[in-house]
């Protein structure tokens, strides 16, 4: 399946791009992050992040489907 990734803030800077399409063999949103974190040497640990699937907050164990839009959310700092 293919997953559409959008990157923001510190993760966008570390990844060097704001969006991309990746091939994924299947699994959860957490499975994909752990794979990407190793691939791109992301320093942010899973407990510090949240994840959104198709523009809604999701759980790490949420299974991903072909074409999903996924965003990994670094610690927020609005206000």
């Amino acid at each position, binding site marked *: 399946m293919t997953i559409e990734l*959008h990157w*923001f*803030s*510190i993760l*966008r800077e570390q990844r060097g791009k704001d969006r991309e399409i990746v091939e994924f063999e299947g699994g959860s949103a957490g499975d994909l992050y*752990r794979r990407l*974190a*190793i691939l791109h040497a*992301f*320093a*942010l*640990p*899973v*407990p*510090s992040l*949240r994840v*959104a699937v198709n*523009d*809604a*907050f999701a759980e790490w164990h949420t299974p991903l489907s072909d074409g999903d839009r996924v*965003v990994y*959310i*670094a*610690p*927020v*700092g*609005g*206000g």
Partner: protein
Amino acid sequence: MDLFSLSDLALDPCSLSKTVCDRAAGGYVSFEGWVRDHHENRAVDHLEYEAYPALCLNAGTGIVQEAIERYRLRRARAVHRTGTLAIGEIAVWVGVSTDHRQEAFDACEWIIDRIKHELPIWKKEFYPDGTSVWVRCQACANHPVAA
């Protein structure tokens, strides 16, 4: 009127306050978050705010709508800035009107707390020496990724 919105332009609190006017309301409370010139004993030159727009609008609208129901507000609205902000600019504005003042104070605080802690908005501080840091991300980044 959008209950929650993002703006890359300067916020005008006088204009915004008029959008929550209601003849049935006996009180109005607003909160302005300002860009200050320091953070944790370090001088700050300016800030940049970056947002994940689609989720911000969904979740931000949900927060304000929940406040309206929870505190029986007549009207409520919140706006958050994005882009580059100078010292003294308004980063976030919250306004609520309601029949009695206590609910207005409580609702305004509840909304700004939820916005700060939940919405996918990131703040990058720029310092006079030319360095910059994503606030709240740096400490986490010093630890390895959990397996």
